[in-house]
C-alpha cells in the first residue's frame, strides 16, 4: 500500500511538469536561434522548407508510428491543403478581404481534415496491406483528377500566388523570408504541441492499441475502424497545414506536391528519423530535407544516397536516427558507453572510409554513364579523379570493400563486448 502511494505520487502531473516542459523550452529556444545563426534569404528559406517538412513528417507519424498504419498516399493531403490555401488566398485577395496570412494554414488544414475524414472512412476498414493499397489508390485517383481539372490544379506549372496580396497583419508584410519563418515556427510549435497532446488522450492511446493488436480493441468495445479513421483525419489535417505553409513559402503549388514522390519522401523522412520517438520525424525531415537541398546541388546522384541511407536504417537501425540517439543516451546514463568508445570510433572511422569509397564509385559511375558529356575528369571529395581511369576506380573499390570487410570482425567484437556489459538480450535502459 505504501509503495503504491509513493508510486502514484511520483507519477502526478505536477511532479513531471518540469521534465515535460524542458524539451519544449529547448525547441522554442532553437527556433529563436536558428534564423540568427543562419541569416540570409536563401538560408531562411531553407529553414522554412525544413520546418514545413518537419510538420508534415510529424503528421505522418501519427499514422506510421502511433497507429501502425503505412499510408502510401499521405502527400494527397499535403498537396490538397496547399491548393485549398492557395485558392483561398487568391479568392480572398480578389474579394478584397483582409484575412491575416498566418491564419491561412487553418483553412488548408481544415479542408484537408474534412477530406481526411472522407478518405479515412474509405481506407480504414482494415489495417495493414489493404490500408496501404487503398491509400495508394486514393492518392493516384486525386493525382489523376488533377489532369482533369486544370482550373483547380493548374497545368504543369501549378498555381502561383502572391502572399503579400492579403496585406499586412501582426506587423509584418510577408515580403521577406524571415516573416514566413515566424509563421512556420509558430505553426511548428502549435502542431508539435497539439500532436504531443494527442498522444496523451484516450483516442491517442487507442491508436497505439490498434497498432499493437487491432482485434483486441474490438473486444474492449471500440471500433478499430473509427480509431483509424479519426487518426487518419487528424494526420490529414496537420499535413494540410504543412502543405499550406509550403504554398506560402514557395508562393506556388504544383501537382507534384500531392504525388507519389512526395508521399515517398515523407515516408522516408519519418522512418529514417525514427517512428517511436516523438521528435524522431523532425530529425528525419531535417536530415533528409538538407540532403535534398544541399546534395541535389552537389551531385546528380542525391536520390541514390538517400536510398542508401534508407536501406542502412532499415537494416541496421530500425529505430531510426532518433532510436540511435536515445539508445546512446541510455548507455551514457548507465555509464556503459565508455568501454565501447574505442571500438565504436574504429567502426565509425572505417565506416566513413567505406562510405567515401561508395561515394566515389557512385560519382564515377554517374560521370562514366549518364553525365559522360561533362568529360571524364571530376573532383570527388576534393580528389581529382577520372571516370575512365583504372586508378580512380581501383581506389574507390578498395576503400569501399576494404572498409566494409575490416568492419566485420570489429562488429562481432562489439557484440561480444555488449554481451559482457549486459547490453544484449535485454533492454539497454
Amino acid at each position, binding site marked *: 500500500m505504501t*509503495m*503504491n502511494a509513493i*508510486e*502514484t505520487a511520483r507519477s502526478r*502531473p505536477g511532479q513531471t511538469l518540469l521534465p515535460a516542459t524542458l524539451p519544449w523550452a529547448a525547441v522554442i529556444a532553437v527556433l529563436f536561434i536558428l534564423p540568427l545563426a543562419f541569416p540570409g534569404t536563401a538560408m531562411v528559406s531553407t529553414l522554412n522548407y525544413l520546418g514545413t517538412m518537419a510538420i508534415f513528417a510529424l503528421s505522418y507519424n501519427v499514422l506510421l508510428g502511433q497507429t501502425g498504419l503505412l499510408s502510401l498516399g499521405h502527400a494527397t493531403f499535403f498537396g490538397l491543403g496547399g491548393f485549398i490555401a492557395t485558392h483561398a488566398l487568391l479568392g480572398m485577395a480578389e474579394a478584397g478581404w483582409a484575412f491575416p496570412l498566418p491564419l491561412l494554414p487553418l483553412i488548408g488544414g481544415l479542408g484537408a481534415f474534412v477530406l481526411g475524414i472522407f478518405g479515412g472512412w474509405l481506407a480504414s476498414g482494415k489495417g495493414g496491406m489493404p490500408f496501404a493499397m487503398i491509400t495508394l489508390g486514393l492518392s493516384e485517383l486525386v493525382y489523376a483528377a488533377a489532369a482533369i481539372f486544370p482550373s483547380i490544379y493548374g497545368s504543369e506549372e501549378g498555381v502561383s500566388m502572391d502572399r503579400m496580396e492579403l496585406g499586412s497583419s501582426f506587423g509584418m508584410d510577408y515580403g521577406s523570408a524571415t516573416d514566413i519563418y515566424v509563421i512556420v515556427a509558430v505553426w511548428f510549435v502549435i502542431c508539435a504541441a497539439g500532436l504531443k*497532446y*494527442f498522444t*496523451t*488522450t*484516450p*483516442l*491517442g*492511446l*487507442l491508436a*497505439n*492499441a490498434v*497498432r*499493437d*493488436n487491432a*482485434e*483486441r*480493441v*474490438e*473486444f*474492449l*468495445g*471500440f*471500433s478499430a475502424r*473509427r*480509431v483509424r479513421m*479519426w487518426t487518419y483525419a487528424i494526420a490529414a489535417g496537420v499535413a494540410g497545414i504543412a502543405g499550406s505553409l509550403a504554398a506560402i513559402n514557395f508562393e506556388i503549388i504544383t501537382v507534384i506536391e500531392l504525388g507519389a514522390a512526395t508521399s515517398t519522401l515523407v515516408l522516408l523522412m519519418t522512418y529514417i528519423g525514427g517512428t517511436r520517438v516523438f521528435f524522431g520525424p523532425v530529425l528525419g525531415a531535417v536530415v533528409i530535407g538538407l540532403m535534398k537541398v544541399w546534395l541535389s546541388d552537389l551531385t546528380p546522384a542525391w536520390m541514390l544516397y538517400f536510398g542508401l541511407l534508407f536501406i542502412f536504417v532499415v537494416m541496421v537501425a530500425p529505430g531510426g536516427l532518433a532510436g540511435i540517439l536515445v539508445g546512446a543516451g541510455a548507455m551514457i546514463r548507465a555509464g556503459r558507453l565508455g568501454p565501447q568508445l574505442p571500438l565504436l570510433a574504429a567502426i565509425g572511422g572505417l565506416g566513413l572510409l567505406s562510405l567515401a569509397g561508395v561515394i566515389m564509385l557512385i560519382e564515377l559511375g554517374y560521370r562514366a554513364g549518364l553525365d559522360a558529356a561533362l568529360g571524364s575528369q571530376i573532383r570527388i571529395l576534393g580528389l581529382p579523379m577520372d571516370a575512365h581511369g583504372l586508378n580512380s576506380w581501383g581506389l574507390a573499390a578498395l576503400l569501399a570493400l576494404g572498409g566494409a570487410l575490416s568492419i566485420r570482425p570489429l562488429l562481432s567484437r562489439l557484440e561480444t563486448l555488449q554481451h559482457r556489459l549486459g547490453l544484449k538480450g535485454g533492454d539497454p535502459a
Partner: protein
Amino acid sequence: MSANAIEIRDLRKSFGPVDIIRGVNLELRAGERHALIGPNGAGKSTLFHLISGRLRPTSGKILLHGQEIQGKPPARIVHAGLSRSFQITNIFPEMTVLENLRCAVLWKLGHRYSVLRPLGRLRDVEAECTRLLEELRLTHRRTSRADSLSYPEQRALELGLAVASGADTLLLDEPMAGMSHSETAAALELIMAVTEGRSLLMVEHDMGVIFEMADRISVLVYGEVIATGTPEEIRANPAVQEAYLGTPNAEEAA
C-alpha cells in the same frame, strides 16, 4: 429481462464442409458460475468465438439477456454487456500494463474516442485502473511493457482486460492454462474475486478447480453439449463418464 444471461439455441458452425459446432443448446443463468468442459478440439473455443462475435454462426440463435446477438460485431456485443478473455494471450504487447488497462476501462467510463482531456487528468480512469492493478496484483508492474511480464502476469492482465470492461457476463477461455499448481490456486482466488456478482462461463480443464468453483457444468463433445448439471450430476452421468471422465487419465488428456 430473462433470468438467463446467455441462451444458446441450436447453434451450428461449419468451416467449409466440416461441422465444428453441431447444434449446441446452452443456458448460462444470471449470476451463476458455469464451467464448460470437453476434450481438446471439441469446439469450446469456437463456441466462445461465436458468442463473442469473433465468428459468425452458420445457423442458430444466441440471446444475451434475451436480446439476439448472433452475428453482431464484437464491440456491439461488449456494449450489450458481454466480455471475454482468450485462451491464447491477447493483450497489447508494446504498451504498459497501465495503458492496457486504461484502454479496457475507457468505454464503460464513457470517454470513448475522446480527445478533450489527457488520460492523466481523467480521475475516474486512474482510480479504476489503480483498483484493477491492485486486484490483479500488478501494481508493481504498472509501467512495465506487457510483453515483458511473466506468463502468469500476462494471464492476469488478459483476465484484467476482460473484467475491466465492466460487462456483467464474462467468458473466460482457459484462464489458468499452463500455470503451476500454486499459480493456479492464486489465479482461481483472483477469478472468484473479480467475477463476484457476475455471470461466468469458463472453459477449464482442472477438475479440482471446476468442482470447487462451478455451480453447474456443461460437457461439450464433438460440437454438442452432451450433458449439463451440477458437479455431482455430471460426475454421476454415465454418458459423461464414457465420453470424457471415464478415460483413466482424463485430467491430463483434457
